[in-house]
């Protein structure tokens, strides 16, 4: 079980400590899937990097990230290296740059095996070949280089490498954002399929609500470094409460050809967040009370941080 408890991250910018993430909590079980949605800058990647222990230098983390009883934030770097790639795999947003251009793809898929297990080169390569087949690259030689592959193929290589050691959890940070729409669907289907097959827990990060609704069991909607709404995916989509979730839903690109309605305004810079609800300046339902921080409360698993939620859809 991977449990994120009251996670906070502050980055040092220009000598100043700026909070970019606060009070993020969720639980991810094996065989389970959680989606993290929100606009650009809402802190999704920071959450992922905090879990991986790969935050930029100068970042200060608070809260706990507990993996099977051990707090990852308290682990010495050596032991954290044994967690990365072995217990938790990660897939990144940019397949074009996530692979080393100088190494053949087979070697890059085999690398985590050689790091975490004492296997021979031959064994690692044989397994890498099987992994490449599993992600649908059976026809592509492991001796190929990343620049000889398309974006979707590269993302498949990254996924194969992340899965090489059969991790218990996979963090996928916008794995399809950089890809063509048709390829996006294929990659998502592949991830869902692999998760079901291996029983690993999947943390899927995206800014696309449509993606979330089809792929994950639980969803967290993030805005300006906080969770503003969360719950079972069906529940959240069946009865959206937070005005931001509504806005995000209206802004999603839809297959039916309906026009997405862009959310007016921008995510506030972490340096200049308003006190209270960070969405207030962009919110049509804003009230005086919104100048104070709304708590995340709700009935059962479905919770929302808003003083004036819009219940009727």
């Amino acid at each position, binding site marked *: 079980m991977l449990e994120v408890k009251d996670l906070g991250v502050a980055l040092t910018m220009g000598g100043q400590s700026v909070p970019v993430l606060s009070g993020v909590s969720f639980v991810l079980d094996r065989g389970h899937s959680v989606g993290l949605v929100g606009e650009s800058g809402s802190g999704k990647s920071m959450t992922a990097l905090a879990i*991986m222990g*790969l935050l930029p230098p100068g970042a200060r983390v608070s809260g706990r990230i507990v993996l099977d009883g051990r707090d990852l934030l308290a682990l010495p*770097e*050596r032991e954290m*290296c*044994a*967690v*990365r*790639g*072995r217990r938790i*795999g*990660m897939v*990144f947003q*940019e397949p074009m*740059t*996530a*692979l*080393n*251009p*100088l190494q053949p793809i087979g070697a890059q898929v085999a*690398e*985590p095996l050689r*790091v*975490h297990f004492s296997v021979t080169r031959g064994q690692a390569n044989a397994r890498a070949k099987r992994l490449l087949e599993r992600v649908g690259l059976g026809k592509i030689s492991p001796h190929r*280089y990343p*620049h000889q592959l398309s974006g979707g193929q590269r993302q498949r290589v*990254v996924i194969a*490498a*992340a899965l*090489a*050691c059969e991790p218990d959890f996979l963090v996928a940070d916008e794995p399809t954002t950089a890809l063509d729409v048709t390829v996006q669907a294929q990659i998502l289907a592949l991830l869902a399929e692999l998760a079901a097959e291996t029983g690993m827990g999947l943390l899927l990060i995206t800014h696309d609500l449509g993606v979330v609704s089809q792929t994950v069991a639980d969803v967290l909607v993030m805005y300006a470094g906080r969770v503003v709404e969360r719950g079972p995916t069906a529940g959240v989509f069946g009865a959206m409460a937070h005005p931001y979730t509504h806005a995000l839903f209206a802004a999603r690109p839809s297959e039916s050809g309906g026009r997405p309605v862009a959310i007016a305004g921008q995510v506030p810079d972490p340096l200049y967040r308003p006190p209270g609800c960070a969405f207030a300046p962009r919110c049509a339902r804003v009230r005086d009370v919104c100048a104070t921080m709304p708590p995340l409360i709700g009935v059962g698993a479905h919770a929302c941080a808003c003083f004036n939620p819009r219940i009727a859809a």
Partner: protein
Amino acid sequence: MLGYLLRRLTILLATLLAASLVVFVVLQALPGDPAALILGTGAREDTLAALRHQLGLDAPLWWRYATWIGGLSVGDLGTSFTYHVPVAELVRQRVLVSLPLAAFAIALSTLIAIPVGVAAAARRGGAVDTGVMGVAQIGVALPNFWLGLLLILLFAIRLPWLPASGFPGWDAGAWAGFRALILPAVALALPQAAILARVTRAAVIDTLGEDFVRTARAKGLTRRAALWRHAVPNALIPVVTLIGLQFSFLLAGTVIIENVFTLPGLGRLVFQAIAQRDLIVVQDLVVLLAGSVIIVNFIVDLVAAWIDPRLRRVGA
């Protein structure tokens, strides 16, 4: 691969031909009398005529160019006017000093600069980085003749370990020859290493910020393993390119250090040939040095393609 090599060879020959034509035109075909240039003003007309005949200047221009190039192509570089020996022999002796010296200096510089540059990049902003880059800054600014003199004072005079100057020739034994090259090589290598270390540091800092380094860390590689296996190899192209440039420079651009250590190298030969207006030697050396620069570039390209698969062209 064969097609690629042939293409490169054609380019090499064409460039050499162009270089030879330019230097020939500048030295021999432009208005002005090479004989007068050599003998200086106030030379008597009959002396000038005799010299012109000796230099073959009474033949037509195209014929002079053709015989020079024809000779070059079979290794006959002509005869030096000042030394009265075949230029080929002159060059051979000098290359036997300059080539090992340049190779030695470049090896030394590379061995120092790459680990230092990588270490500084890995601890960017830390004490090691600041210290190393401070020393490198000084190293870049040091004139190498001063460094040469300092080395002679320290390791030849104060501590009589190494010869202060001169070159005994390889006939005196490999070790004796090597000993004579140690101090000049160090004097040449240190300033080059300072530049190379800075370039290495900058290149590694760039690649450390690349996504694939983060991917490597996410696979469980330690910071150190990600640095050496992913960041450093990707930083090597600019480093190798600079090493090639430095090597080309060291082959003949070292007249100052050759003078400080009284070494009979190519740099001094170039310098003397120009000073004494030994036209044929100047012409030959320009073409040879152009050739060596092109060959070094070619080797750099091969190494770069070996490092980076994206640089291997189709069919190469």
